[in-house]
């Protein structure tokens, strides 16, 4: 989006009012927090929120996917490939292809202040997320079959309701599969977080308020048919390796449970494409005969 110099863009630094409300100790905030606690308390930590996935919806991209999670996270992903590599043999080994990932956040995606669409901090965060996406997808794609080619994947986060990176990984894998790129398996992403407290348990697919309060976060990506972990990214308050191992097992279990949903959406997209192609073929033959 080119910056329009005539538009008043507001002050350089804008701050959300919630920060100052906390300092003033408004009692209304207490009630709000209390309500959230009541809603969050009976949640089962192993509960997976409903996931909606649909592949093959963009007409201009070779492969596309849209993933929506129950808490409001919406990710749209498009994939292209293979194309000829731009810089021949400069960075990549000549034998394999390259996977280029891009991750963009819409300026209205997050809950806080609007991200300025060119700011350095946003670019940093996007680059980090894109690198994480690439880490997760590289083991899944058969890059050796596309020498000197590049495959591009672009993910757009429309709304961040928690577990954004995990949803982006699943959407990107679905988009690549929809584009017809040869892959070993679909990469399924799952996020976990741990709330503050001495004996807090790890929770699957946190929502946005849970993620904000969390002291430790973890995102895992799994190739379920091969049972291989393709990405682990986590950080936060320290705990023993057993606790992290338990969190990892919970995440992998969640990935296994999400896998059938993604496969179904891929099958449906393939059937839709076949039906559309058949309808177009009969239409052209009808025109030709008539």
């Amino acid at each position, binding site marked *: 989006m080119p910056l329009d110099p005539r538009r008043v863009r507001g002050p350089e630094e804008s701050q959300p009012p919630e*920060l100052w409300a906390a300092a003033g100790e408004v009692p209304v905030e207490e009630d709000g927090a209390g309500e959230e606690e009541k809603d969050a308390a009976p949640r089962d930590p192993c509960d997976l929120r409903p996931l909606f996935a649909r592949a093959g919806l963009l007409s201009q991209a070779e492969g596309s996917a849209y993933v929506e999670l129950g808490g409001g996270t919406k990710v749209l992903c498009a994939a292209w490939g293979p194309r000829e590599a731009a810089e021949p043999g400069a960075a990549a080994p000549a034998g394999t292809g390259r996977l280029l990932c891009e991750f963009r956040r819409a300026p209205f995606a997050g809950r806080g202040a609007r991200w300025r669409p060119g700011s350095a901090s946003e670019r940093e965060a996007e680059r*980090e997320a894109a690198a994480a996406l690439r880490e997760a997808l590289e083991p899944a794609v058969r890059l050796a079959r596309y020498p000197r080619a590049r495959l591009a994947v672009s993910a757009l986060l429309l709304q961040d309701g928690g577990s954004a990176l995990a949803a982006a990984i699943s959407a990107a894998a679905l988009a690549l599969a929809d584009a017809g790129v040869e892959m070993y398996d679909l990469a399924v992403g799952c996020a976990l977080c741990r709330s503050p407290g001495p004996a807090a348990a790890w929770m699957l697919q946190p929502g946005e308020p849970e993620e904000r309060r969390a*002291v430790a976060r973890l995102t895992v990506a799994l190739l379920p048919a091969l*049972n291989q972990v393709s990405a682990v990214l986590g*950080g936060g*308050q320290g*705990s*023993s390796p057993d606790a*992290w191992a338990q969190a*990892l097992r919970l995440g992998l279990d969640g990935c296994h449970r999400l896998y059938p949903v993604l496969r179904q959406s891929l099958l449906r997209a393939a059937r839709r494409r076949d039906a559309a192609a058949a309808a177009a073929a009969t239409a052209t033959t009808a025109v030709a005969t008539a």
Partner: protein
Amino acid sequence: GHTDILVGVKAEMGTPKLEKPDEGYLEFPVDCSANATPEFEGRGGEELGTEIANTLYRVFSSESSVDLKSLCINPREHCWVLYVDVLLLECGGNLFDAISIAVKAALFNTRIPKVRVLEDEEGSKEIELSDDPYDCIRLNVDDVPCIVTLSKIGYRHVVDATLQEEACSLASLLISVTSKGALTSMKKVGKGSLDPESIFEMMETGKRVGKSLHIALQKILDEEESLGTSRQKVGFLG
């Protein structure tokens, strides 16, 4: 080995971040010098530099690693910002481990001068630096984690891989371990995938190695500290 890292810590006065008004913060500018490998010439080292910086931010993002409240001077107005400059001089494999060891040692060695805040009659605040150069606060680095890189080669894993070993391994797991054996962050790097069982094994090994690393590092830091000003300054890289 052949890995050389130089870390310098500079403390500057700044305004605290909005979300954490009574804490200071750390910044990690990383520079990959062109001396390390010819690939780093010009802008080549930028990608690796940002990856290292992001990893350091994530490792230090946990609240228990560094006591940030001690870096605060005036809530919401003034705080110490520690710029931890990392310079890669020679790249011989196992970068992240060496960098985290160097950062911990540098933070241990950091001396931040004590400041006093004087209030004028109108309410404007003045910051006064104490005159004594030895009157300073030291950071408590007991909980600062160290990164351990475990590279998977075949069915087993290695710690502290050289360049040749790194070339053979398809995937590695970076774990940050505190001196008490708690893991604070993990990240998988590399083109390959990892088996869940090997991840569990790697975490156990990483915790063991991390603990012994912390003990050895603390011993050396205490020794250097006790030598004080009588320490011979050996030219570094020697």
